[in-house]
């Protein structure tokens, strides 16, 4: 399937017809709603909060933020940023409750430090990977965006960005830029390996507010059902810690395997290999 990101910049792609098509399609509405609900679940807000909606479009996600039930900590108020004037026009016609701004997220996030409790972004940040003119670079746009977002969130705040990377390169480019800006970052993948795979970049600012959490990004998904944590860092750490004692059975086996891999002739291993002998007398 062709990607709209590859054809035109977002402000031109989402023209009046495209914006209307996007907003009235019930299929897109359903997908957007489920992704927004998933993001809200990840944000785990328990009081009415101030939320930044990045790439709010016609307010499909914002609508859900304003309609969160009081028993679940809502309704939240939100400020939406989008680069497409046509999308914002549709949002006005739909009479959404949040404040709207026409802004390019690649130019930064013009809010003072600590403004928001949380930020949410549905299918938007992959647009940052495209530089439309030679004056701007995608890395520059990404770093301006993440630096601005980091500053505008309060300490202990979270951001959840659902995005569609074109390939692994874009995925690492986006998460790398977020980490560089200072976020604690992790990627949650729903329905991995299927056509409906959805990637959520989960970002935290500073330590976790809750007591008992390790302050690690994996704490965000703690207690969620059906989430496996794949932590590449842990494997690395364990490898470094496990120092084999020279002369031990594990060490001998390791050396034998090493030699065998080199193509050397190695005595075959048996139950006696590396076994300590009895005291002779």
């Amino acid at each position, binding site marked *: 399937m062709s990607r709209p990101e590859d054809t035109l910049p977002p402000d031109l792609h989402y023209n009046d017809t495209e914006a209307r098509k996007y907003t009235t399609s019930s299929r897109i509405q359903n997908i957007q709603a489920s992704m927004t609900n998933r993001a809200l679940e990840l944000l785990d807000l328990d009081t009415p909060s*101030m939320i930044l909606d990045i790439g709010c479009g016609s307010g499909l996600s914002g609508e859900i933020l304003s309609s969160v039930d009081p028993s679940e900590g809502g*309704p939240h108020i939100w400020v939406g940023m989008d680069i497409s004037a046509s999308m914002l026009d549709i949002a006005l016609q739909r009479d959404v409750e949040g404040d709207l*701004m*026409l*802004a390019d997220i690649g130019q930064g996030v013009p*809010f*003072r430090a600590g403004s*928001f409790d949380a930020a949410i972004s549905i299918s938007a940040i992959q647009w940052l990977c495209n530089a439309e003119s030679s004056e701007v670079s995608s890395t520059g746009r990404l770093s301006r965006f993440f630096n601005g977002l980091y500053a505008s969130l309060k300490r202990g705040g979270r951001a959840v960005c659902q995005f569609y990377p074109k390939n692994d390169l874009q995925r690492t480019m986006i998460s790398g830029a977020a980490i560089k800006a200072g976020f604690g970052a992790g990627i949650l993948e729903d329905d991995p390996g299927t056509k409906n795979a959805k990637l959520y970049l989960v970002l935290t600012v500073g330590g976790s507010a809750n007591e008992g959490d390790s302050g690690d990004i994996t704490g965000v998904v703690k207690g969620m059902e059906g989430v496996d944590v794949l932590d590449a860092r842990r494997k690395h750490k364990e490898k470094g810690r496990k120092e084999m004692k020279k002369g031990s059975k594990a060490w001998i086996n390791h050396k034998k395997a090493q030699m065998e891999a080199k193509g050397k002739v190695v005595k075959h291993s048996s139950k006696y290999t590396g076994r300590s002998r009895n005291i002779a007398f």
Partner: protein
Amino acid sequence: MKVLTLNFLTCAVKACKSSSDSFPLHPKDCELVSDELEVNSALLTNVLTRVDWKALTTTAAELGFPTLPATPPTPEELAGDEKMLKELHTLLMETQINEGKLVCGHCGHEYAVKEGIANFLLPNHLV
């Protein structure tokens, strides 16, 4: 755009990032509208800790609102004072800038507001 949002916005121009004059943005030639909203005291208490009171006082004066008290009310005061809560709600949530301009105090850049939507797009050389 709500007055509350204005209290969080700064100038987006790169050269203004380090200047304290770039916040708050000053509303100019503004047409205000009032939008009836339900009072949400939990939200207001949560947000009020982050509102820059000095900037809000300036904004309220520029928009022609009655003078605010010198210090922000504490959450306890707010919980006990129904009238205060209502007034703050009217100012922060219900009052919206519909048409006009927001001017940066440092570089003088004017951000247009049309139908409640502020335009923060900048030419590349200012980013």
